[in-house]
């Protein structure tokens, strides 16, 4: 077994216009690799577990940077670094859920270079898959993590389909809760995809975590004004308070009618291959007032339908407890 840690030969393109990047992405197809902050990229490449022919560095493209107001909320360039999102006044005022989630990503050092786009489309952290094993997600025909004695404490309790990996993104949960829209650009133009549809599970595409097609670049994320200034709750439970991915996280957006919940979206991270909507909790919560009583009533709904593996049944009570905390008010 070779242990690699030197960057292999790989071409590097550094376009400054989105059009050039899109042309490159189209030409290179699956041989190309989109480079944001590099925090996911370099591990894959140095380990030689992924071997693209060329990297397309998106950081020099001005159009992919920045936080802009739109007619209906805000738009964030996909290459905007997480630190800038965390510090942005508008986001903190209107969409603090995203700022809170971004502020729990990895470590300060990683947030200083890691981009929103990179955080959203990063690959799963399943340790078997990351080892370069020939699992389903890597094009093989086995799942090592789902085996009877596999070490799967950090794996999925919902939505497993051959693969039991989970989404590692903290900002994804917040953006699904905020009903964000993803703007995907290609040489054919742009299309928008709802955050709900952007993240895909293994039953849809076992080798991808998003619905981006080859040649497409995530250009921006739009957050509608619908949830601006509403009630939010974010919490991430991880082994350590820096660096670690969520064991379970929750992002909740709630609009209130006096003391009762008019509308809400609750999303858990770390429990499925995609950000996991707690639709049954949402349905039951509408019309309820926040407080201990409703928290107790709603919490058990969170884990309904969960199928734990050997080492991760703790995620069920943890999800319930996080719902409890979100709904206590």
């Amino acid at each position, binding site marked *: 077994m070779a242990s690699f840690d030197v960057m292999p030969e790989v071409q590097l393109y550094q376009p400054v216009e989105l059009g050039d990047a899109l042309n490159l992405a189209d030409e290179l197809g699956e041989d190309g690799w989109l480079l944001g902050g590099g925090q996911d990229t370099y591990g894959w490449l140095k380990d030689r577990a992924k071997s693209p022919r060329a990297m397309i560095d998106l950081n020099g493209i001005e159009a992919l940077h920045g936080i802009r107001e739109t007619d209906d909320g805000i738009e964030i360039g996909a290459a905007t670094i997480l630190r800038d999102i965390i510090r942005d006044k508008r986001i903190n005022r209107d969409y603090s859920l995203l700022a809170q989630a971004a502020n729990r990503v990895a470590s300060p050092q990683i947030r200083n270079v890691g981009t929103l786009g990179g955080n959203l489309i990063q690959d799963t952290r399943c340790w078997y898959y990351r080892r370069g094993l020939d699992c389903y997600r890597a094009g093989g025909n086995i799942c090592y993590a789902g085996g009877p004695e596999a070490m799967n404490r950090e794996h999925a309790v919902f939505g497993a389909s051959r693969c039991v990996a989970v989404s590692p993104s903290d900002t994804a949960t917040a953006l699904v809760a905020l009903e964000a829209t993803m703007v995907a650009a290609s040489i054919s133009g742009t299309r928008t995809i709802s955050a709900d549809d952007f993240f895909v599970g293994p039953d849809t595409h076992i080798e991808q975590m998003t619905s981006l097609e080859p040649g497409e670049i995530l250009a921006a994320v739009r957050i509608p004004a619908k949830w601006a200034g509403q009630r939010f709750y974010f919490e991430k439970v991880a*082994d350590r*308070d820096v660096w670690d991915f969520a064991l379970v996280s929750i992002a909740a957006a709630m609009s209130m009618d006096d003391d009762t919940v008019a509308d809400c979206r609750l999303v858990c991270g770390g429990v499925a291959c995609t950000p996991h909507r707690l639709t049954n909790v949402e349905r039951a919560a509408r019309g309820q007032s926040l407080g201990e009583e409703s928290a107790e009533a709603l919490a058990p709904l969170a884990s309904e339908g969960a199928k734990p593996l050997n080492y991760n049944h703790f995620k069920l009570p943890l999800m319930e407890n996080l719902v409890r905390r979100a709904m206590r008010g």
Partner: protein
Amino acid sequence: MSDYTLLGKDFTPPDVTGKVTGKAKYAEDFKVDGMVYARMYTSPMAHGRVTRIDTSKAETMDGVIGVLTAEDIPEVEAPNAAILTNSPAYIGDPILAVAAETEQIAEDAMAAIEIEIEPLPFVTDPLDSLLEGGANAREEGNVYARSREGSGFREIKWSQEQIDEFRAGKEPTGEFVSEWGYGELEQGFADADLVFEEPFVTIGYAHMSMEPRTAMAYWENGKCYVHGSAQSQSFWIPGLARMLGVEMKDVCLISENTGGGFGSKIGAYPIAALPGYFSRKINRPVQLRVTREQEYYMGSARVGFQGWIKMGFAADGKITASDVFIVEDIGPNATGGDASSAGGAISLVYDPTAMRFRGLPVLTNTTPRGAQRGPGQNQIAAVMAPIMDKAAKQLDIDPVEIRKINSTNNDTIVYADRSPVTSAYMNEALDQGAEMFDWETRKTQPKRNGNKVRGLGIGQGYHSAGATGFDGLIRITPDGRLHVHSGIGNLGTYSYATTSRAAAEVLKVSEDSMQIHRGSTDNHLPWSSYQAGSVTIFAHTRTNYVAAMDALDKMKRIAADTMGGAPEDYDIDGQRVFLIDNPAQGMSYGAIAARAIQLGGEYSGDSYPEDIHEITQRAVQNLAGTGLVGVAKDNLHQEGVIPGLAVAFCEIELDLETGKYDILDYVGIAECGTVMHPKGLAQQMKGGAVWGFGMAKSERHVYDPQNGLPANVGYYQCGIPSYLDVPSVTRTDAVNIADPQNPFGARGIGEPAMGCSVAALQSAISDALDGHIFGRSPITPDMVVNHVMGRDQSYKPLQTNNF
């Protein structure tokens, strides 16, 4: 603190500037002309036999210089670690190496190598190997016992019923290989008013040195120069020479700075000899850079425990009996020996009236094990703290008090051979810590606040902290400067600098007139201790003391010879030797040194004591005639165990809904004799605390038992505490009472500084959960959530190397 001029005072060690500016050079930073780069191909299987190696494609690639396989290196008898092997016993076991003009070519060549390995049964949990029908980690057996009477493989199997009973927390009835004890055990339990049994698991985990064990080597005139990542300096030479098949004089180790070793780089490890072999084969300097991932595979790990303990307490809190049985995970190379040390720590820290230790070292196909900070002592510290709390609660005794009732002091005799201790002030440390932590007030505070609950913890750490019999070597040159030659190595504790100051203290030399020589064995270094086991402060304040006293004696004799009178008529100060009755009449150190060169003989190193080590003799030979030489072996009186002790108090706030806990406050008290370097000591106590938090909270090996794959081969997977996982302020202090068997009163502290921390945190978690004992380290949020919610844990009782 002390009355000394230099000792007990803060100072800036000479290598600090390089570390802060980045100019400090580590093994990987050294390059020489013609150097080529080697990379290792390691086993993808947990246990196997290499049946075919085809390097032909790799060898024909442009830039590839050569290949080194096990055939090029003398065979090593199992279970000892080989430099390269055709019988890999863990994933990551080195099989061959390729050298190339660039690292990238070496990696490209790696990808072109074809190897076939016949798989053999493997095991990642000792209990799975012990179970009848279970796999053996080695073809020769599943147990390797080391003893004075002889060492060897064994095959030991327990019945399903015996395994089940052990898992159920009952006394193990299966075969074991080592036993010792003292006192009347049965009588001790009969005398007890409280008797209980607890099963326990402490999972092993990586040493996690920031600097992987990279090495570079080349040969000049039959001498091998090795740039290595070494914890010790002189202590490496015998092992390195043996592995390279040369005499000690034909090896030079250059190791100016080391990015951590923590017990994994004490002596020369096999892979450090690989570049030497490779260089000899291809006649080029070779640098073997070990990757981060490889460092986790082969970089050594703490021994894991699966055990059972029975404790008996009298109504007044005194421990009447302690009976402990430990199955020890000794990895594939039968390294460790932690279990018996754990038994020793029970004896010394808790002083039971009677005790018995039984041990069973079991081989596994996991990362090789090695001594890691407090090997054995710190695992058992984690186990014992909640047990002491449980007894305190059931006997209605204050948790500090029950520890004081059982604590070691100057009169305590320890271990099976009932040895005395040089000195011990555990009670003083507990009192000092309790006061600093304000234990009396805190223990009365309310515990519960909504979903948060506070927990208070107390921990005690111990490791023997001294060694004797090593050599000291100093010089005074005609410019009047003091040169201290130190072969300790530079692990990062700065003890090489602290102990060197002992010579300056004796000779009343100012800081700026002293120069330390170290970093390369060509700098004429004496035979020094391993920089491990918390020994260096004790061992090398003594060696530098005896060398300085030798120099002092010679200086007085030279003065008497030159100016008349008897040596005892002279004293020193201001870097002069002067007549006591007429201080104006004297000689500067420079003049004395010049005179020593003229006189020759023992004064200038032309002759030397017969009892100094071969390595020191050679250093003196090389220095002879350059000044006044002070050289001596440490033959000072030493008797009994030299204890390094530490206690810690901590307060946590545990969230019952998330299983997370924050450490709100931490106080660590060192009991290490007279403090030699306050800032260095504080850093040891703080660093040890962080390490203990990691062991208690998050660090552990995880192996997939289906394929032997380790899950932790990167920093983030290994769970070292981050800056938000530790308290913002960690408070430390020291008892600071002199030990009588060190000329300056000093003992070591490195290892107990961690043991007290892991113990305090385990104690605090138990306190927060109303006395619940997990009997495991680490305690992770999922375990807490499962416990609080009344759910079963995911793991089998006593399972190890798992989530």
